[in-house]
């Protein structure tokens, strides 16, 4: 029987969609059906990871030019 502590370790694979073996999947599913505390852990972990700050801002043209200019001056003679 899977313990809560093991579920917390396996929860990463679950939220990542990493393939688990059939027996692992069944054991996890049974545990989660019966244990609301672990269900809560998995649900909240998913929510947490989906709100982490992601760096998606692009540089503006001036900043981009700044970087490209330094490429030119550092070119090998």
């Amino acid at each position, binding site marked *: 029987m899977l313990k809560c502590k093991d579920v917390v370790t396996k929860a990463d694979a679950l939220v990542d969609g990493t393939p688990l073996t059939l027996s692992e999947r069944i054991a996890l599913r049974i545990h989660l059906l019966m244990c609301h505390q672990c269900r809560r852990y998995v649900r909240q972990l998913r929510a947490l990871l989906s709100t982490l700050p992601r760096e998606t801002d692009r540089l503006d043209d001036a900043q981009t030019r700044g970087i*490209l200019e330094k490429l030119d001056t550092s070119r090998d003679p």
Partner: protein
Amino acid sequence: MDPALESPQFIERLRQGDQAAFGQVVKVHHNMLLATARTLLSAADAEEAVQDAWIAAHRAIAKFEGRSLLRTWLTRIVINQARMMLRKGGREIQFNLIDERAPLDHRFRDDGHWDHPPQHWDLNGPDALLTRDELRHCMEKTLGKMPDNQRLVLELRDLQGMDFDGICNMLDVSASNVRVLLHRARARLFELVDHFQETGEC
């Protein structure tokens, strides 16, 4: 990720030395690469490492064979630059696992069941826990204090969405070590949010 910047046609333009295409790559990827470098270096050193990485990438782009994503290739160059700078300062990033107690371990009884189970987090509504500014602030602090190996793996996997194989190859670390580092990083964050829910403090 921007699929247009990974297309074979675009990569070919880059390889031919198309400067406009290279500019496009800088524009889209720079901040993400900076965030990666920041997990290992100070703000000023990270800027320098990424600028040096652009110079290295610009020189080597004709030899980029497209066996990995362009984004992965660039990230690898940045990490190498960052490691070089660390070495200059006599530091090194370690990926072997130190014997650290998993951050949530103390919340279980000896028989492996919850002793101190997770709080219920208020995930919905206008004042939803995870969107609150005080908590975001606490998260920034926790991210800043995290061991750099955990922070880097978290950055690549959960903030930038890279796949496991890419991360393992890039860092030359086994999949099992990457998983343990990622688990520790996530558990730290979980612990922080749970503590905040319970006490209203970091």
